[in-house]
């Protein structure tokens, strides 16, 4: 058991509490707003005086098929992460462990894709999506999302790959493993923290993307969740229905948090990094 002085423990827990409070407070505010309606929305108290589920019920019974949008988002984000991680891991192996000419240039070129503002590639991407027949389908969004997640995924995985010990790879080669087996059987277990981190961030990125989802999908049944939230309307042209928007935001954020809770164990499993010794 590690021996930690008492004051150290107190400071630790105090800091943890502070961090949690700052991170979560606005979300708590959103949750509380989602239980208010009418004029109570403009009132500054944290807890609603007359809480009700009206906003949540209204979400699923409104004119937009919110439930369907949730499913679309889950499908799109999952596919994006799968593609990005698969392509990213294989590319990272090449970039991180093999020395070849043009590697630096390639890495820069990949980075370059992340340097363009989304709005600039919008109309070109629109034409491309239409010509590929992916227009107006939720699945069609996986293509641009994967492309724009790849640079980040590749760079992070490359960096982590680079740090893995050479002895492990040499031992596996001596055992007769081909590169694919090395990647998936030897390196993957060690890379879990990096994989989970990039996977989570890629999922969240795809989940929350708005501009492409708005422009490339106009059919109500195929929309994803961020656009759905932006379409939540009030009773008139100017009213911003805070209650409904906050309810939708809560519904939309909870799956992400659940995902994090489930996967965050894996971030800690780098303890096997000591497997090389002895």
């Amino acid at each position, binding site marked *: 058991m590690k021996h930690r002085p008492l004051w150290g423990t107190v400071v630790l827990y105090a800091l943890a509490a502070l961090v949690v409070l700052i991170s979560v407070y606005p979300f708590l505010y959103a949750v509380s707003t989602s239980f208010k309606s009418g004029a109570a929305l*403009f009132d500054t108290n944290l807890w609603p005086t007359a809480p009700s589920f009206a906003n949540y019920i209204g979400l699923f019974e409104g*004119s937009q098929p919110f439930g369907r949008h949730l499913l679309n988002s889950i499908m799109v984000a999952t596919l994006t992460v799968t593609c990005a991680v698969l392509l990213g891991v294989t590319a990272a192996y090449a970039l991180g462990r093999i020395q070849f000419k043009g590697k630096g240039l390639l890495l820069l070129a990949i980075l370059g894709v992340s340097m363009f503002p989304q709005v600039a590639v919008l*109309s070109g991407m629109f034409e491309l999506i*239409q010509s590929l027949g992916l227009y107006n389908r939720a699945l069609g969004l996986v293509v641009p999302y994967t492309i724009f997640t790849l640079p980040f995924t590749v760079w992070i995985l490359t960096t982590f790959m680079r740090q893995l010990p050479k002895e492990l790879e040499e031992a596996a080669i001596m055992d007769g493993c081909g590169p694919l087996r090395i990647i998936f059987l030897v390196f993957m277990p060690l890379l879990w923290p990096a994989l989970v981190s990039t996977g989570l961030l890629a999922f969240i990125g795809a989940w929350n993307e708005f501009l492409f989802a708005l422009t490339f999908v*106009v059919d109500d049944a195929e929309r994803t969740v961020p*656009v759905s939230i*932006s379409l939540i309307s009030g009773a*008139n042209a*100017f009213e911003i229905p805070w209650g409904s928007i906050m309810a939708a935001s809560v519904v939309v954020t909870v799956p992400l948090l659940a995902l994090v809770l489930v996967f965050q164990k894996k971030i800690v499993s780098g303890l096997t990094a000591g497997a090389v010794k002895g």
Partner: protein
Amino acid sequence: MNVQMNRQSRYSLFLTKLVAAFVPVIAISLAAMTPAHAVTVTIACGTNGADFEFCKRHTGEWAKKTGNTVKLFSQPISTTDSLALYRQLFAAKSTDVDIIIVDVVWPGIIKDHLLDLKKYSKGVESQHFPAIVANNTVDGKLLGMPWFTDAGLLYYRKDLLDKHGLKVPDTWEDLAAAAKKVQAAERTPAAADFQGFVFPAKAFEGLSCVALEWVASYGGGSIVDSSGKVTINNASAVKALNTAASWIGTISPNGVLNYAEEDTRGVFQNGKALFMRNWPYAYSLMQAPDSPVKGKFGVAPLPKGGAGGKNAATLGGWQLAVTKYSKVPDAAADLVMFMTSAEVQKDRAIKGSYNPTRPDLYKDKDVIAANPFMASLLDVFTNAVARPSTATGIKYPEVSQAFWDATHDVLSKKSTGEEAVRKLEGRLNQVKRNKW
């Protein structure tokens, strides 16, 4: 036996052939008897819950009458996002939507993509407000049928004006004086944030509307006149902007520089302001049972700019238009005429408080009975000032943005009225290049 069967089977064969010969004839005649035009028209006619309900109901009536189907198209809430989306669809010559709801400043911008409705309207547009029809007519083509309208109004706290013995202000100067007096009296420690006058002054299209009202009320013109000449650099416009700037920090909080319509309504509805400038939609919302100002406020035309000025309200509102790429233009135009007819507009006015675009309806007793304050709006709408969107065509967004930027600079004391207006003139001439 063979011969008997042969005769029977020959007979049935003959019958079969007879029926077979007639089937196509029957089929064709049946087809000819059904209406030739059972088409699907896609309409985007609103962004919020109330709009949707009305749209569904009225388009449903038309669908039953004509045997066509109507599909509703969801567009983004924000007007800027909608316009961007439509322009993207037009660039792709999309047939995803046939009828779109067009903001009052859009006809000039998207004029190349809308159908001329003159041959379908057959002159019925003369029954609508002339200002709106003129706004929707670009290069002699009627690009949109007026559907419902809007104009800026002055909201005031009846109870507070009575309490301090003041009447509804006639000029901006009167308003400032009244606001100053009441604000000083009402700012007790318990209500330290009581404001005299709140209005939307965030750097967006709404500010262009508000600022145009100030400029026009002092006789300063409408930024660009109908012939395309840039007229903003004049003394009246300077006076208007400087006057408005003097309110910030005295009778209006600094925060208005980031207020949109809803923030403004929030402050007034919470009872924290004496005057508000907003659109008519706020009226029924503030009369809701849980509103703190229910029954305590009234509306009036916006004040004049000094004794020699005039009441000016910026024209808002929406029209219905048919896209050029529609595969069903005749049916679509018919639906547009139906939705903008007197019956449908009257129904929308009574049940949804949508301001009609037909002057006759403002004297209709059913409409007035349902919305008493609409009677006072007739003059406001007749004399409303249109933004220079028709004159400046596709460059209107840039013009408006230059105008609201200049105004925002004056309001946030970054520049004086004179400098701002002079720079604005230069900038607008650059945007114009040689012609709009």
